[in-house]
C-alpha cells in the first residue's frame, strides 16, 4: 500500500527508521557469536526479550514475590495484583470480553492439550471428526491423535498445496456431519503461510463446528482480536512474542469453559475440599491448579506493553517490508529455493540450497554468527508432504533489520563456495 497517502500512517521509510531503533532494547542481540556479531534469525522458534521484559521480571522477583490468591500479607497482595494485572493486560491485548476467559498455561502446547483433555474428552465420542491441516506443528496434531487412541475420534487432515498455501474451500470440503472441531494454525511455523481463517471459521461456525486456533506464530506478527475472529479457543505462547518461556495463554468462550470439567486438580482450582466431595473454583482458576508461573505472567504483560507501545500494526507492516526484502534477495540466487510461497505469508522463510543439506548450511552460517533453524521445525507431516528432508528457516522479528538479511545472503555465498 502507499502508506504516505493514508492519514496518520507514516511512510515505509519513516517506519523503518523508527523500527531500526528497537534493536537497542534487546540486549542479547548485542554480542559476538563465533567471533562475529550475532545475527538472530530464529525468532519463530523463540524470540529474544527486551530490557523491559527482563527488568519487569527482575523487579517482581526482587520485590513482590509471594504466593498468589492466598495470603493476607502485603507481598501476597502485590503478587496477586501483578498476576491478575497481567491477565487483564492479556485480555485487552486479545480483545477478549472477560478475564474469566483468560487461562494461563505453560504455552501453546499445554493450552491445546488442555482443550483436548477437557473439552475433547467431554464433548467428543467415537467416530466424531476433528479437522486439522497438513501443515500443523506437532502440538496441534499429537493431542488429537492421543484422543483418537483414547476415545476413537477420527482425525481428518485438510490438504496443503504444493506452494504451502491452504485453500479455504479445501478445508471446508473436509467438514462432514460428524465434524465437531476444527483445530487450525493461524500462521504456519514451518513455511510462514497465513491461513484463511476469515473464510474457514465462519464456514465452520455455520455448521456448528467448534474452532480452536493455534496462534503461536500469529501472536508475534499481528494483532489478535478474538471478539471478531469467531473462534471458540485461541492459544499462544509468551516466548515467541518477546516474553518469557513457560507462560502462555488459552482463551476460550466463557460458556464453553464453564461447561468443561477441570483438568489438573490441586490448589487454586478448588473452592472447598473435603473427602465427602470437592467443589471447584470459578473461571479462570478452575483450570489453573497449583502455584502458577507468576514472574512469567509479569514478563508476558511487559512484552505486551512493549509490543503495543511499538504498535502491532507497525510490527506487522515492518516485518512485511523485511519479508519482501529477504524474499527478493533469495529469489536472486539461482541455487536457493524458497519452500512455501503462499501469497499471504508472515516473516518466516523456509529455504533449501541446491546440493547442500540444511544441517550443513546451518553449521556453516553459525560460524558466521548467524542463527537459523534447520530441520523439520516440529512439523514433520508437511515436510514429508513437500518431499523435503527438512529446510533451513530464517524468521524475522520486529528487532531484525536489513543488515541481518544481507549478512545471511553473504554467508550463503560462503556455503556455496565451500560446497562447490
Amino acid at each position, binding site marked *: 500500500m502507499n502508506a504516505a497517502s493514508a492519514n496518520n500512517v507514516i511512510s515505509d521509510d519513516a517506519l523503518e527508521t523508527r523500527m531500526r531503533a528497537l534493536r537497542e532494547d534487546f540486549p542479547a542481540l548485542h554480542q559476538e557469536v563465533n567471533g562475529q556479531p550475532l545475527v538472530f534469525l530464529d525468532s519463530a522458534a523463540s524470540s529474544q526479550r527486551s530490557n523491559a521484559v527482563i527488568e519487569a521480571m527482575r523487579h517482581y522477583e526482587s520485590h513482590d514475590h509471594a504466593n498468589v490468591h492466598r495470603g493476607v500479607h502485603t507481598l501476597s497482595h502485590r503478587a496477586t495484583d501483578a498476576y491478575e494485572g497481567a491477565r487483564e493486560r492479556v485480555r485487552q491485548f486479545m480483545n477478549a470480553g472477560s478475564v474469566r476467559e483468560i487461562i494461563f498455561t505453560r504455552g501453546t502446547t499445554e493450552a491445546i492439550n488442555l482443550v483436548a483433555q477437557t473439552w475433547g474428552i467431554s464433548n467428543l465420542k467415537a467416530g466424531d471428526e476433528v479437522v486439522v491441516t497438513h501443515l500443523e506443528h506437532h502440538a496441534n496434531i499429537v493431542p488429537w491423535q492421543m484422543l483418537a487412541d483414547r476415545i476413537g475420534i477420527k482425525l481428518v487432515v485438510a490438504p496443503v498445496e504444493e506452494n504451502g498455501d491452504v485453500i479455504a474451500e479445501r478445508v471446508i470440503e473436509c467438514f462432514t456431519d460428524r465434524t465437531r472441531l476444527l483445530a487450525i494454525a493461524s500462521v504456519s511455523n514451518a513455511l510462514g503461510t497465513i491461513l484463511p481463517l476469515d473464510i474457514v471459521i465462519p464456514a465452520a461456525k455455520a455448521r456448528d463446528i467448534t474452532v480452536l486456533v493455534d496462534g503461536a506464530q500469529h501472536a508475534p506478527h499481528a494483532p489478535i482480536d478474538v471478539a471478531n475472529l469467531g473462534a471458540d479457543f485461541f492459544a499462544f505462547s509468551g516466548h515467541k512474542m518477546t516474553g518469557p518461556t513457560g507462560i502462555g495463554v488459552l482463551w476460550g468462550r466463557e460458556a464453553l469453559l464453564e461447561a468443561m470439567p477441570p483438568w489438573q486438580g490441586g490448589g487454586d482450582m478448588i473452592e472447598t475440599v473435603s473427602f465427602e466431595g470437592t467443589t471447584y473454583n470459578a473461571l479462570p482458576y478452575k483450570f489453573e491448579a497449583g502455584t502458577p508461573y507468576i514472574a512469567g505472567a509479569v514478563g508476558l504483560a511487559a512484552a505486551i506493553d512493549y509490543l503495543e507501545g511499538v504498535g502491532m500494526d507497525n510490527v506487522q507492516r515492518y516485518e512485511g517490508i523485511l519479508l519482501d526484502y529477504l524474499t527478493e534477495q533469495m529469489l536472486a540466487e539461482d541455487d536457493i529455493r524458497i519452500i512455501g510461497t503462499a501469497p499471504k505469508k508472515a516473516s518466516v522463510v523456509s529455504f533449501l540450497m541446491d546440493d547442500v543439506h540444511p544441517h550443513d548450511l546451518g553449521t556453516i552460517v553459525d560460524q558466521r554468527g548467524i542463527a537459523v533453524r534447520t530441520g523439520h521445525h516440529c512439523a514433520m507431516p508437511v*515436510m514429508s508432504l513437500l518431499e523435503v528432508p527438512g529446510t533451513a528457516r530464517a524468521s524475522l522479528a520486529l528487532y531484525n533489520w536489513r543488515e541481518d538479511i544481507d549478512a545471511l545472503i553473504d554467508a550463503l555465498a560462503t556455503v556455496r563456495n565451500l560446497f562447490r
Partner: protein
Amino acid sequence: MSVDALYREQVLKHARDPIHFRRVEHAQHVPGNNPLCGDKLDLYVTIDGNTITDVSFHGAGCAISMASASMMSELLSGLDTATAGTLVDEVNAMLAESVDSVVSINLQDLPIAALGEVRRYPSRVKCATLAWHAMAAALRGDSDPVSTE
C-alpha cells in the same frame, strides 16, 4: 578454528560422491536413523566367514553423515571382522570424546580422522556416528533398527 577444517575437501568429496552408495540384496541390513535431524541410512554388510566382503549403504542425510558412511564403507570392506570391530570401537570412541583428545594411532592417518573435527560442533556429532553405530550392530549380528537417540 574455521569450519573449513570440518568441511575439508576430503570430507566433501565423500559426501558428493559416496563410495558403495547402493542397496545390496542378500546382505545383512541394518536400518538407521537420526530422529533429531531426519537422517536415514540403510547399511548393508556382507560377511563371508571372518571377512567383511562388502560394506554398502543407502540413504539421505547431511554431508557429515554421508561422508562418514562413505569413509566407513571404504575402510571396512575387505577387513576381517576382528580388525573392523576394533576400528569401529575406536571411531565411536573418538567421536564420543572431547575435541582435545588424542586420536588413536590406528585412525590417525586415515581419512576418517578428519571427521574428528565434528567434535567441535556438538549438535552434529550424531550425524557422524550414525553409520558407525549401525556397523557396530551389524558386527553383533543385530539387524534391529539403530537410532542415535
